[in-house]
């Protein structure tokens, strides 16, 4: 593993709790690694599994999903919908050869600034240990390792 490896982590943060929690971490001047690219969504329930596979396809090394604590969802059920998707997402990723631990689901409330900083610090360190995912190498692999010659000519 390269010593310079800096993980690229996409974080989907719910607009009501977790994004506000991340804001609080900032306004509280808490320090945490800059490896996370936060994307604000209306609800963790908005995080379609498509977002997760797209993030990995486009070069993410890890995906963090944060929503309101169970029972606190602004839309009542949204975070439960995410909770129900999560084990299936992990299982699907494992079948693709992507370690399930590269995706993480956490509940972070608007007052959980310190918790957000702790989750991001832990997760970044964990992904750093795991190394790059580099899915572009899977997508750009040649169809075959052998030379291919043309056989069809007009006659």
């Amino acid at each position, binding site marked *: 593993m390269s010593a310079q490896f800096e993980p690229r982590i996409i974080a989907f943060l719910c607009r009501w709790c977790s994004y506000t929690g991340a804001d609080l971490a900032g306004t509280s001047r808490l320090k945490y690694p800059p490896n996370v690219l936060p994307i604000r969504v209306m609800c963790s329930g908005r995080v*379609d599994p498509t977002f997760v596979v797209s993030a990995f396809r486009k070069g993410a090394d890890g995906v963090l999903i944060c929503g309101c604590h169970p029972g606190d969802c602004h839309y009542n059920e949204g975070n439960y919908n995410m909770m129900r998707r999560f084990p*299936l997402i992990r*299982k*699907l990723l494992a079948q*693709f050869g992507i370690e399930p631990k590269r995706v993480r689901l956490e509940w972070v409330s608007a007052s959980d600034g310190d918790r957000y900083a702790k989750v991001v610090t832990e997760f970044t360190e964990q992904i750093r240990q795991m190394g790059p995912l580099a899915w572009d190498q*899977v997508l750009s692999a040649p169809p075959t390792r052998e030379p*291919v010659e043309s056989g*069809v000519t007009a006659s």
Partner: protein
Amino acid sequence: MALYWAASCGGCEISVLEVNEAILDVAGFFDIVFWPVALDFKYHHVAAMADGEILVCLFNGAVRNSEQKEIAELLRRKSQVMVAHGSCACWGGIPALANVTDRDGVFQRVYFESPSTDNPQRITPQTSTRMPEGEITLPVFFDTVYALDQVVPVEYYMPGCPPVVDQTLSVVEALMSGALPPPGSVVGAGSKTVCEECKREKSDEKKVRRFRRIHLAGDLDPIKCLLEQGVICTGPATRSGCGAKCTTVGMACRGCYGPPAGVVDQGAKLISALAAVIDSQDPEEIERIADGIDDPLGYAYRFGMAASSLRRVRVQ
């Protein structure tokens, strides 16, 4: 018109003939210049044509070896309109499930491990073999199965495994009249989901505490939604246009018409739909219910692995 089959089962070819006597109208309108399954034209006849001389090519099957890639490129050059005919050409289809492994894995299974194989000399296909009469060759088998548009540009996508007959007819009629949608369109299908066409009764309640495989679920209600009964049905993540034939006769949708309009990843959408029917708010119980699905990838990408976001499994 040209018709070709690459990595496919031949079902699309049969579905073309299933238009019955309408095939005579097709043959009357089009001069069929290449159709390996039915007519005795050779590759070199196609190679001798001028570029763009063929009006339309219906290409079925995925691309998994060098011969298929080469003929796809040849037919693309010679054809004005390239139609990915059937789910294999559109998204990889069943052959693209081989993207869970690579060539070595496929050969291992096919030539050594499968129960019906007896191969004590451990013979596998060689791309080149020296014989007394000279060298004989075979195409190179690829590590990854590709959808047609991952190999050459494609104008239209005509899904189905195989496309249903009336949809095939509607596409052929559109080709004959010239009333074609913009390039890149899916033709011969709807735009919504199979659920929109399915007559089974649906509710919005979450009811599933256990997923079941359809052949082991003996007590299914013939009227109600299969997914709500815990049988994995791909209907909510699959394009309409087939007429929901499978669910009508008690078989769950398997997803052959591919993703509906606006859906980029059919499998990810299915995962979302499956999660939506789970009746639990307890993480451990949800985990246990999800564990009842042995092969999420197989259900999610049964017909679309090659065109999925991640495209293939990483082989260590």
